[in-house]
């Protein structure tokens, strides 16, 4: 087992045994489902909206080369500097390079999942810069020195009490049970940081090829401050985030809000089209867009799973996933949790190292059913399983399935097996629960079914 796989198993054992944690996540996500259903019902036809979104994304991804060039050209036309990063190291180098060139020191960040993907904060801190997260959830997990628990709701695993305790400990504030007060505490601390920051780093929810703009969706206004107050704005964006036309946002903005958080529209949706233009009173002096590949083009090269690049990171698949609901976001050990993470992480970080995530699914398909851009998520998990096994079969599984195939193809032998099994199950209690129990993975928590006194085929024989 790879280190990532054994860590995942360990985490899953600990977290499924934590009933408080399970109840917390389940309750939170039940509330999400109620508000989401309400907002979905406000669409004239949610299913046809999904279809349109999938088609727009299909075009965007299948003509990514052309859209990206158009996007970059239009950005550059208004003075934005566009950088192309093949991998995480290059992206970090580009960003650190920009900061060093400005002789800057303090950095404010709004939510950047690509930043998590390339471990940007660690790199920035190592290079000697001050980095502060401005999204409330991100700020909270930063204070706790832990990664986001959910790529949309980074601190959803924490209660008000825990957040209050954290603020008391880290910021010296009085404890409170009021979410508004907690927000105000963070806001007071962060306002000074915006003003002091030399550099603002953001992500991008969408990149509009037609107009050369990035679109950022947020609820707190922190991204607007991050992108507008510092002298330099750097946006780190995955190359798959490009949409062909501005009008596509008319569908994608409400869809992201609905699927992501059960909102009609997210609080703030802003388009950023360049640095301060001549004659303009505000905005950053320089605007850099760093386009990140980091193995996305490898996923693009896989026609079977390419549609995973349709993802708009709404997190809906996490919210309905029974695995996620029982183990939570930290168990995965990956930047992108839940079903979409299980699909893309093996492509981004290596199939053999991350294949366990595709096996850690009951294939219930709730993710595929909910995905607003119709990614065939649970089928992709099956395909990844096939690809992983084709590359490297498990030494004992291969002969087992070969043997089973032989058994299944010889009904007489299958019948004999059932007869022997019936005898075997008489003696099974002798080993049940011991180290010799061949079914221990099952019987640790469940009773085994019994082979019936008369199987169906035996019954069929008797009635003739």
């Amino acid at each position, binding site marked *: 087992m790879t280190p990532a796989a054994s860590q995942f198993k360990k985490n899953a054992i600990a977290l499924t045994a934590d009933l408080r944690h399970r109840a917390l996540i389940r309750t939170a996500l039940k509330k999400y489902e109620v508000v989401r259903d309400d907002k979905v019902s406000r669409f004239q036809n949610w299913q046809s909206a999904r279809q349109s979104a999938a088609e727009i994304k299909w075009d965007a991804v299948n003509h990514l080369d052309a859209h990206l060039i158009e996007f970059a050209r239009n950005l550059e036309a208004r003075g934005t500097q566009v950088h192309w990063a093949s991998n995480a190291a290059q992206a970090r180098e580009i960003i650190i390079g920009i900061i060093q060139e400005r002789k800057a020191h303090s950095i404010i960040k709004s939510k950047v999942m690509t930043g998590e993907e390339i471990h940007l904060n660690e790199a920035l801190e190592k290079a000697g810069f001050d980095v502060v997260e401005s999204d409330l959830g991100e700020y909270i997990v930063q204070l706790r020195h832990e990664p986001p628990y959910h790529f949309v709701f980074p601190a959803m695993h924490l209660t008000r009490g825990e957040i209050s305790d954290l603020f008391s400990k880290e910021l010296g504030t009085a404890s409170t049970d009021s979410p508004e007060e907690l927000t105000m505490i963070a806001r007071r601390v962060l306002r000074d940081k915006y003003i002091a920051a030399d550099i603002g780093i953001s992500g991008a929810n969408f990149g509009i090829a037609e107009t050369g703009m990035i679109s950022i969706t947020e609820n707190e206004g922190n991204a607007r401050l991050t992108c507008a107050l510092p002298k330099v704005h750097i946006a780190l964006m995955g190359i798959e985030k490009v949409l062909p036309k501005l009008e596509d946002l008319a569908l994608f903005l409400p869809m992201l809000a609905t699927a992501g958080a059960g909102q009609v529209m997210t609080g703030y949706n802003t388009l950023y089209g360049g640095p301060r233009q001549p004659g303009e009173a505000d905005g950053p002096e320089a605007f850099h867009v760093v386009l990140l590949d980091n193995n996305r083009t490898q996923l693009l090269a896989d026609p079977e799973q390419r549609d995973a690049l349709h993802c708009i990171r709404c997190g809906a698949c996490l919210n309905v996933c*029974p695995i996620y609901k029982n*183990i939570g976001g930290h168990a995965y050990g990956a930047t992108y949790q839940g079903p979409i993470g299980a699909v893309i992480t093996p492509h981004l970080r290596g199939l053999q190292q991350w294949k366990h995530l595709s096996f*850690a699914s*009951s294939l*219930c398909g709730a993710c595929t059913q909910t995905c607003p851009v119709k990614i065939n998520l649970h089928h992709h998990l099956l395909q990844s*399983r096939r690809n992983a096994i084709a590359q490297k079969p498990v030494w004992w*599984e291969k002969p087992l399935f070969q043997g*089973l195939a032989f058994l299944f193809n010889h009904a007489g032998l299958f019948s004999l097996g059932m007869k022997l099994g019936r005898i075997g199950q008489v003696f099974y209690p002798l080993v049940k629960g011991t180290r010799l129990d061949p079914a221990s993975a099952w019987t640790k928590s469940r009773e*085994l079914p019994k082979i019936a006194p008369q*199987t169906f085929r035996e019954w069929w024989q008797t009635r003739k």
Partner: protein
Amino acid sequence: MKITLFIPCFIDACFPKAGVSAVEILERLGHTIDYPKELTCCGQPAFNSGYWEESRTTAIKVLERLKATEVVVIVSGSCGAMIKNFYPELFAGTEHEEAARTLSAKVYEFSDFLVTKLGVTDLGAQFPHKVTFHDGCHGLRELGIKQQPRKLLSHVRGLELVEMGEVESCCGFGGTFSAKFPMISTAMGENKCGSALETGAEYIVSNDSSCLMHIQGLLDREGKPLRTIHLAEVLNHR
């Protein structure tokens, strides 16, 4: 109509009553049953585990034996989905692709067959109990079966159906998943059993014995009085 009945391996071995009930119901409706006893398994365990080659070894036999049939009925949403939806994917690009597509078109899950193909909803059954219905994920999401079993249950005399909370949540079985990640599988099953117990039902009914096997295994371990029963058995209860 000559109906070919595919009996999945675990129903054959552990839950034969579901198969027997299906035979008796369909025969009472005046149909002839063909049971291909040389078939045992659809190949799903290997398929779901990534061993598609080994899965094809089993599935080719199914394709060949079911070639000359009129209609195929499967008493399981999961194995039904395997043959109907996943065979075409399993055999894509092989010489059997066409055969897989042809078979796919004539495969029905049992409750879907009764309601959609035969147009039957009242089987004259009687089952004076309070029950809750569990939707197997493959039946629900791969085959789109939601109303069919409920329509059938609504005509069972004496039966009271109480829907459980989070009714479309997976029971956590997932085939080999239940052995590879038993802790997650069990946690999911505990949630499912909890939702079912909250309804105060005496039985959990489903059109999928594999889910019921998992749920019953958990209930037995916990010593809970709630019982599981296949839809076909309820519909055959008079």
